[in-house]
């Protein structure tokens, strides 16, 4: 008995060590970014792994002011937040019926959405379209566009997950007298928390990090989000590596927090998922 326990312990230690070594490869470049964000301009110019003489926490307050990050943060939250709700709700609904009904029409519709994963966004003609709708250079326009860009991915992501939910569950709910909306929103949708959180995090991130779409669809700098503020900042201060790295850290932070929160839900959402 003792032997088995020791063996388990060794196994766990090896497991831990192996994962640690792997994560080291990820953390090294990250460390590089963070440590350089805390140096003076002169120190950061050599771009080394070395510790700074004095930690320059002031870089952060300075960059928040210089790049108007508070406003940019609000813009990013608004654009990424609202657009992610739009695409999760519309995408999950569409994907559900597409995966449940395997008729020719529905299969064709699935492929129609799938193509959106592949075709590149055409900014010129999209700008034309938004202009036609009088939505160019507005938050509504960019939110709808971000939402739309997320739909194909979500349809695709959910499609696979719906397949793992037994149809008997639907049938039971129907017999219990659920309306179609109740069936979906009360019975099916909650089962897909892992997928929903995954899609939420990834799409939020996609919108958060996308800096090309706003360049074309939003002109006014005051409406731009955090990622765009970095690039403009980079253009204006291309030698101040410490500031650029500080800006980068600040932009990634909200995403990490979202991921950490999301993780909690992924786990709690799993318990008893398929048991129904």
């Amino acid at each position, binding site marked *: 008995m003792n032997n088995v326990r020791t063996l388990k312990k060794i196994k766990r230690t090896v497991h831990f060590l192996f994962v640690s070594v792997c994560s080291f490869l990820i953390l090294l*470049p990250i460390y590089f970014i963070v440590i350089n964000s805390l140096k003076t301009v002169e120190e950061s110019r050599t771009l080394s792994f070395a510790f700074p003489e004095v930690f320059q926490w002031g870089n952060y307050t300075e960059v928040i002011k210089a790049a108007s990050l508070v406003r940019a943060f609000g813009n990013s939250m608004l654009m990424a937040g609202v657009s992610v709700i739009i695409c999760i709700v519309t995408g999950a*609904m569409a994907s559900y*019926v597409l995966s449940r009904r395997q008729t020719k029409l529905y299969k064709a*519709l699935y492929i129609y959405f799938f193509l959106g994963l*592949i075709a590149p966004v055409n900014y010129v003609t999209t700008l034309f*379209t938004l202009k036609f709708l009088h939505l160019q250079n507005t938050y509504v326009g960019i939110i709808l566009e971000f939402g739309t860009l997320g739909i194909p991915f979500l349809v695709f992501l959910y499609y696979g997950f719906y397949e793992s939910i037994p149809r008997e569950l639907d049938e039971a709910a129907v017999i219990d007298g659920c309306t179609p909306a109740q069936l979906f929103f009360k019975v099916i949708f909650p089962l897909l928390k892992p997928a929903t959180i995954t899609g939420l995090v990834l799409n939020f*991130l996609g919108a958060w990090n996308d800096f090309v779409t706003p360049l074309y669809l939003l002109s006014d700098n005051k409406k731009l989000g955090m990622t765009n503020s*970095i690039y403009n900042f980079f253009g204006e201060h291309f030698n101040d590596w410490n500031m*650029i790295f500080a800006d980068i850290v600040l932009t990634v932070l909200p995403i990490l927090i979202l991921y950490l929160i999301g993780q909690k839900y*992924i786990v709690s959402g799993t318990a008893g998922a398929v048991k129904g």
Partner: protein
Amino acid sequence: MYKKKYYGLKFVVPAFILYTVLYIIPTIAGMIISFTDWNITRPGVHFVGIQNYINIFQSKGGPYLASISHTFEFTIITVILKTLLGLGLALLLNKGLKSRFVFRTIFFLPYALAPLIIGISFVSVLKPDGPFNTLLTAIGLERLTHSWLTEASTALGSTMAVEIWRMAGWNMMILLAGLQMIPEEYYEAASIDGATAGQKFRKITLPFLRPSLTTVIVLNTIHGLRVFDIIYSLTGGGPGGLTEVINTQVFKEFGLGRYGMANALNVVIFIITVVIALSMQKALRGKESNE
């Protein structure tokens, strides 16, 4: 028959409208432009038939064919490695370790960084006198040091490595979501029957994971064929065009104002991707229903 009522088209309508208006219509408009000589540096737009496509397949006006072949090379290698690494990480971090949440966050971290930021950072990391070579030297592997992004033999490979670094955690995340939907009871039952770890993996994990594996393989392929940001920010298609891919060409054509050609290149990559992705989907998803 409850199907018509419960799985009605009205569930598709909101997504369909948004997607059609803001995505399909602009895309089709772009495809039409690909048959013209629209160049914003000159007045007038003329229909030129398939002339742009002929130019692509003769590499007239840019290294188009070389770009297509680099794109394929990039895609094949990154798809294989991203998927395998992602699966490995997902299995390692699914359960067991107490600290798995911390590790998951660490591996997911690179994906949270915008590709252009990763590019900016890795240009410094991979410099000949940069941290990566310093590290290699420190652990006694000095002969492995390179000027990673600027030597002909390592440039494209280095861009692939950075892309894998960025996306392995993303693969892990989707596969983890898949792993977590496998009911624990199956493993318990298998254990009672005396199944080995390998048998459990083959008979329970893999079949259950197939939908999410399909998802990541297909998406990795699409991402590979559409690669742009990482290459653009790491090498700009250099040195000497050795890492030029289709989308860096598209970007350059747009920069030159040659919208007809830029759109034609977009259509070419689109068609290539559709054919590959749909046949992969069919092959991979098809197997599921045989289970």
